Every structure is written in structure tokens, then in C-alpha cells.
């Protein structure tokens, strides 16, 4: 009997409610006190095709999905055929044997356990809609795992309206009863009761964590155009628009979004937009304008496979250099790349602070894997990051002589006054300008203004000395030092566990702030490392290039993956072992 550690894959056609089922199952397990990691996989279509959601449930922290699956919940035959090879020996398949005929040999030679539950007949006899077949399947899965059905019922009640919840509860019970009556004790996996149920831990996606960070930061203006993988963020913000007394607007395109956001920021609202690579291409000109006009905007770039439209619903880390260099000319900006949902929350709040304090665009770099995966995290500490708006005058009447929006100062930071303030003319300009924001083309002013804007980086870099721009996980002294950024953090930490069991000591240097690049910190870590390897979800190892550029140091090896899928920990551990 394998207790309290399982990976469940729920699969079926698009439109069958796969993601929702996975989420519900994960949340039920979370309520039971487990650590849950959920990741979805779907193509760029709405009906048909194949979707699946993997839920990994552990008594201890689960940083990512695993390599294998213990139980497949198959809503169609395709799911079984596609995922049978991922099942461990002794793994189970819950399916509707009345609808799916498995020919001899189709499963291969492994000792898989088949649990047929007549989803469709059950739903028909209930007089319910086909869509609740997935809930019948969930109920059956919970019975196989020896769980109390009530944990799912509570989640169903919390998620759906009363009527829909009741239908789903009945469906779950029917599936549960069928599996219990026919298969009790036949599956070697079980989820038991844990001593500490939950502790208020939350089940949150990267997108939602960014959204909550934005709300907490006081973001009052959000404009976006739908685009995977950050469409979920638009939905999240829109659903909270009224409760948080903010403006959420879906504009005609990404150019409109970022220009609106810049206008709102100029007027004094904390403002954000989010997009993916293609949409960010359209935003690039305005990103430069935000730099030039010293407008504090926050841009979320959720990466997906490129180039061009690439794999629209799959993950990648191919836009790091793009984010750092996007737009013509030279201007200061920040790029931060959270590695999990917790960092998504805190770094988003900080992004707004940095944007206003240094009056520059700040980019939050996520990706499909981070944005849409579900993480189990401790409740966010809402007091951890204080709101800091920098040198911002918020009175009604400006005191003093003529206000100059782009005053040349030693720090490079010009005091900010908002339009609508008495005795102040607040003028800015996408063209090079003088202190008053009037167009200026003479060489002295051009040089002074460029120097002024770039001086802000000095102050920013000084402040960043007090931040964890680079995070380290694992032992101080290690045989192998992994360097990475963003969402690869989860699979890397899982891989480190595997390697540790095998006696290979590895640690991780996670570069959280990529621009300005924390060259000194990285140099220190690399100097004391025995052997270094960069892990990235891209083909050209952009981080290794940055390290070389900023530290004149080469890493010893690179492990790269660019097939649209995140690293699985076992696979990654294998690759790391090869280079160690």
C-alpha cells in the first residue's frame, strides 16, 4: 500500500471539463491537508482534441508534477492510449467500460488495474447532463483512494451554485458508490487523514497570484487583450473589478492596452497590463515611451513557445532577452521573473513599488507553466511588502516655483506631481524633452536627459543590494550548482531531491531579478561553485549568455528543453546526473 503520495491524470476531450475536474480534485486534497500541484495541458482549440490535467498530491511539499502517473481518470479512450505508458506498474485506470472497448494488447504488457465505472449510464439514469460525467469519475477515484467523499462535496458546494452543486454531489456519490461496491481494496494507493488539515493554505495559479499581488499593491487600472497564457489573469481581474473599485478594460488590441495603462499611470493610478509574446511585440513601442516619459507601468509577459504564434498553449522561456531589450533606444527598466505562485504575489507588489519609485516600466516575466499551474502555498503575508510610491506629491496645490516634470536631479528621479494639481503644469513627451517636458533636440539637453534617466539605475541597484535578487536553495557546498530563472524552479527543486537520494549534492541559484542583472551576486556564487549547469526552457540558453556577458564566466553545462513542455523532475535529474 502506497500512502499519501499520488499523481492523478484526468484526461478527455476539450470541453469535457477536464481542467475544472482537476482543480476540484486538487482542492479537495488541499482541504484534506495535502500539498497539491496541478498542471494542465491543452491544445489551441475549444472542442475535441485532447486535454489533460495532472494533480500531484503529497503529504510534503510538491514543487512540480512528477514524471509518472499512478491513476488515470479517462473520460475517453484516447486518454488511455496516450497516457498508458506514463502509468507506473500497478497503476490504475478509471474509465467507462460500457463506452470504451479496450482490445487485447492495447494496454501493453504492464500490470495495470482497470476500474470500469459506467459514467454515461450513471449520468443518464440521473437525468443529468453529459458534462457531469467527470464528477462521476472523480467520485470513483476518491473511492479507490479510500477518501471520504465529503471533502469533495464541500468543494463542490463552494464552487458551484446550489443547484449545480447538488447535481454534482449526486454524480460524485454515484461514482463513489459504484467504485466502492466493486473495487474496494483493489488499488494499492490511498490518501489518508493528515494530522494537520490545511492550515489555511491556498490553491492558487501563477496568474491569480499576480492578480492578487496587483490588487494588494493598489492597482486600479488594468487593460488587457485576451491571450494565452495570461487570459486567466484578465478573467481574475475582471471578476474582481467591482469589489476592488477598479477599472478593468478589454481594449481593441495590445497597443491600446499599454497606451491606456501609460495614460492612467501618468494620471496617477497604479496600472498594469498583461500579454504574451505576440501581444508584447505590439506593446514594444509604448514600453519605450514609458521609459522616455518616466511613466510607472507594470507589464506582465506570460511566455509561450515561439517564434511567432508558435505553440499558443504551451510553455517556454524564450523571451528573456526580448523583455530586456525590447524597444528602440536605451532606457532603464526592470525585469523580474518569479519562479512560483508565492513569488508571483510578492514580486508583483514590489513591481508596482519599483515602477513608482524609479518612474520606469517594470516587467514581470512568467510563462504558461507558471501562469496556469496550481500551486499550494501558505497564505500570503499581506504585511510583508509595504506600499511605497516614491517621490509623489498628492496634495491639491503645488507649492514652490515652476513645477518641472523632468527636473534634472542628482538621483535622476524627478519629483512627481499629478495632472490636476493646482499651480503645476505637468507635461511629458515621447520626444526628447527639457525639464518642462517641452520637445528639445539640442545635444546638451539630449545628453543630460539620457544621463538623468540612466542615473536612476544607480539608485535602483543600490536599493537592490538589500533584496534577494538571487535566491539559493540546497546545501551551501554542492557537487553541482544549477543556475536558472523562472518556472523551472519547481522541477529543479524536485530533481534536487531525487539527486540527493542518490547521493549527489546539488544546489540551485535562482536569478529572480534579471534586469538590472545581479552580476556581483552571481559572480560570488559561481566562483565558489564546483561545477555549474544552466537549466532553461529555451533553445539558446539566454541566461548563460547573460552570465557570460555580465560576469565573463562560462557555465560548465547547459540543460535545455524547448518542446513546449516543462521539465519533468526525473527526466531533469537524469540530465543533471549526466553533466555532474
Amino acid at each position, binding site marked *: 500500500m502506497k500512502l499519501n503520495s499520488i499523481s492523478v491524470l484526468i484526461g478527455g476531450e476539450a470541453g469535457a471539463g477536464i481542467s475544472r475536474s482537476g482543480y476540484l480534485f486538487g482542492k479537495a486534497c488541499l482541504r484534506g491537508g495535502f500539498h497539491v500541484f496541478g498542471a494542465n495541458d491543452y491544445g489551441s482549440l475549444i472542442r475535441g482534441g485532447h486535454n489533460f490535467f495532472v494533480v500531484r498530491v503529497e503529504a510534503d511539499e510538491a514543487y512540480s508534477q512528477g514524471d509518472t502517473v499512478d491513476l488515470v481518470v479517462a473520460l475517453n479512450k484516447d486518454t488511455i492510449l496516450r497516457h498508458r505508458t506514463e502509468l507506473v506498474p500497478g497503476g490504475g485506470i478509471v474509465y467507462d467500460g460500457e463506452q470504451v472497448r479496450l482490445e487485447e494488447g492495447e494496454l501493453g504488457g504492464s500490470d495495470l488495474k482497470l476500474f470500469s465505472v459506467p459514467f454515461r449510464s450513471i449520468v443518464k439514469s440521473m437525468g443529468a447532463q453529459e458534462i457531469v460525467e467527470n464528477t462521476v469519475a472523480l467520485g470513483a477515484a476518491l473511492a479507490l483512494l479510500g477518501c471520504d467523499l465529503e471533502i469533495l462535496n464541500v468543494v463542490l458546494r463552494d464552487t458551484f451554485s446550489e443547484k449545480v452543486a447538488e447535481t454534482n454531489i449526486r454524480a460524485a456519490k454515484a461514482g463513489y458508490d459504484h467504485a466502492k461496491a466493486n473495487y474496494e481494496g483493489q488499488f494499492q494507493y490511498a490518501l489518508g487523514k493528515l494530522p494537520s488539515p490545511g492550515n489555511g493554505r491556498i490553491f492558487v495559479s501563477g496568474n491569480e497570484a499576480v492578480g492578487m499581488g496587483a490588487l494588494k499593491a493598489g492597482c486600479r487600472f488594468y487593460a488587457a487583450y485576451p491571450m494565452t497564457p495570461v487570459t486567466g489573469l484578465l478573467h481574475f481581474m475582471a471578476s474582481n473589478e467591482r469589489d476592488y473599485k477598479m477599472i478593468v478594460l478589454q481594449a481593441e488590441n495590445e497597443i491600446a492596452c499599454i497606451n491606456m495603462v501609460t495614460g492612467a499611470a501618468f*494620471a496617477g493610478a497604479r496600472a498594469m497590463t498583461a500579454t504574451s509574446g505576440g501581444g508584447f511585440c505590439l506593446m514594444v513601442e509604448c514600453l519605450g515611451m514609458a521609459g522616455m516619459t518616466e511613466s510607472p507601468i507594470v507589464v506582465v509577459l506570460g511566455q509561450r513557445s515561439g517564434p511567432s504564434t508558435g505553440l499558443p498553449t504551451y510553455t517556454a522561456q524564450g523571451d528573456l532577452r526580448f523583455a530586456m531589450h525590447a524597444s528602440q533606444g536605451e532606457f532603464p527598466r526592470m525585469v523580474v521573473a518569479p519562479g512560483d505562485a508565492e513569488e508571483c504575489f510578492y514580486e508583483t507588489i514590489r513591481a508596482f513599488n519599483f515602477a513608482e519609485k524609479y518612474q520606469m516600466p517594470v516587467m514581470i516575466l512568467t510563462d504558461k507553466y507558471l501562469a496556469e499551474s496550481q500551486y499550494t502555498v501558505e497564505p500570503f503575508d499581506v504585511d510583508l511588502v509595504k506600499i511605497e510610491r516614491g517621490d509623489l506629491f498628492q496634495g491639491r496645490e503645488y507649492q514652490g516655483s515652476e513645477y518641472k516634470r523632468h527636473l534634472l536631479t542628482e538621483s535622476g528621479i524627478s519629483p512627481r506631481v499629478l495632472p*490636476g494639481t493646482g499651480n503645476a503644469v505637468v507635461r511629458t513627451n515621447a520626444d526628447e524633452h527639457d525639464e518642462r517636458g517641452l520637445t528639445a533636440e539640442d545635444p546638451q539637453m539630449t545628453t543630460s536627459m539620457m544621463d538623468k534617466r540612466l542615473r536612476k539605475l544607480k539608485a535602483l541597484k543600490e536599493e537592490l543590494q538589500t533584496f534577494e535578487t538571487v535566491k539559493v536553495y540546497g546545501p551551501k557546498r554542492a557537487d553541482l550548482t544549477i543556475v536558472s530563472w523562472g518556472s523551472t524552479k519547481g522541477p529543479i527543486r524536485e530533481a534536487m531531491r531525487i539527486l540527493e537520494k542518490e547521493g549527489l549534492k546539488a544546489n540551485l541559484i535562482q536569478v529572480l531579478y534579471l534586469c538590472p542583472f545581479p552580476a556581483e551576486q552571481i559572480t560570488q556564487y559561481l566562483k565558489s561553485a564546483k561545477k555549474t549547469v544552466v537549466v532553461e526552457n529555451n533553445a539558446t540558453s539566454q541566461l548563460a549568455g547573460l552570465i557570460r556577458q555580465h560576469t565573463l564566466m562560462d557555465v560548465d553545462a547547459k540543460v535545455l528543453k524547448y518542446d513546449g513542455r516543462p521539465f519533468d523532475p526525473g527526466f531533469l535529474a537524469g540530465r543533471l546526473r549526466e553533466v555532474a
Partner: protein
Amino acid sequence: MVTMEELKTPAEITWCPGCGNFGMLTAFKKALVELGIPRENVVMVSGIGCHGKMVNHVNINGFHGLHGRVIPLASGIKLANPELTVVGFSGDGDCYEEGWEHLSHGLRRNLDITVIVHDNMVFGLTTGQTTATSQKGFKSKSTPFGAIPLQLNPLAVALTSHATFVARGFAGDMAHLQRIMVEAIRHRGFSLVDVFQPCVTFNYLNTWDFYRKRVYKLEEAGHDPTDWAKALEKAMEWGDRIPIGILYKEERPTYQDELVHLGGPVAGREIGEVDIGPLMKAMT
């Protein structure tokens, strides 16, 4: 209250002598004086082109933005702080070429902003190329053999995009233009004002004389600006007689009127105490 003197800036004017922009600049300043809105509560936004320099020459809050993006930029400012009067200046290249996609959406959104288009039917700042409002056959450096497509009709498009205020002015009649600007800014909703503004350097066709011979005032011709079908008819009029004045005007709730939950401008609001507790609870 603001005076003409207070609206002056030290910036040197770099438009060609005889440019239609001079009349537009004066008409706008006079409109501001006439409106009497406290100076700090007005923001002007401009795009790129000869018109874009307007921001340098009026001493009020201003944002000289990118080419073609006047409407979204002005919209963001207005959305964040509806207490500001926001006036956008754009050109035919800026608004009807580079930023064309924003016009219909801006109109149907109906924010309470004004967009004044310096329509000289030619690219001026890039030294003379054909634009979307250049007439078919117009010869320029980019179309030496004559422009092939037909010209766009922005006013007709505005009317079919649910515009609530559509007008056309002529830089050669400053007093009339001033009156249109005042009406446009006073109008609650998106106001589009297309202004014939002859480019004396690059447009040999649509000259001061061209317009003086043709324009007539709608209000003198008994036009009823509440009649949408008639307005569309007038928008289609082009030839020996070309109408100027207010084509159409309609009262409709603005975008912001429907954002009833906001309870005041989001800009400048206290943001220190946001409770995300309920959201976290829903995720447990």
C-alpha cells in the same frame, strides 16, 4: 480662469509660415479662455506629426505621445481621472492611418474626451506623402503617379461607430473653429472634430483657396445636428460644396457613467489598505 498670456510657452514655433496649425492653436487657446476651466484640470494629448507640437505651445498639462496612439493614451488619462478635461490632438496620418483602429473603438466606448484631427490630407513632417484622406490621384513623393485607393471618410465612419459628437472645422475660420472646439469640449461623450488644415508646403491640391471656395456652414444651411441620417448625408458630401460645422450631436451615457462601482477617480486614491482576505479565503 486662464488668460491667453498664461497659456504661452517658451517653445519656438517651427511650423511653416502660413500653416493651418497657427489658426488651430489660437482657436484652441481662445476656446480654453472661453471655457474657463481651471488650467490644472485640462490635459492635452498629441501624437506625432506637425500637429504633435501643439503640446509644446500651450502651457497646460500635456502628454506628447506616440504616432497614432492619441485615443488610447487620452482614454487612459480620462479613465483614471474623470475630473480632468482631456483634449487629444491628432493628424490624418496619426488618427486615420497609424491609429485608425482606435477611432471606431474610441467612438463606441464614448469616453468624455475630445479628439481634434489636423486633417491636411498629406504627411507633412515626413516631407510630403499620401495619407488615407488624400484624394484619389493625389501625387506625392510616395505616389508620384497618383494615389490609387479612394480616400477614407472618417466622419461617415464616426457616425456609423456610434459617435455622439461629430464636427468639422476649417483652420481658415478661427472664430467658427473656436465655437466648434468649445462645443466639442463641453459635450459629454467622445467628440470628434476633423479640421481642414491646409499644408502650404506639401498639399498642392487642398489649399486655402480650395477650401475657401467650397466650405459652407451647416448651421447657416439649416442642418439639424440631431438628425443622424442627415448627418451621414452631409458627411458624404464632397465636391463643389463641403459642409463644416457640427454634423451630429447626441446625449448618451458615457463609458464612465456605467462604471458606477468606482465612487470617484481611481487616480490619486489612497491605496495602502486593500483587503485581499476574502480572495484568499475562497482559495483555501
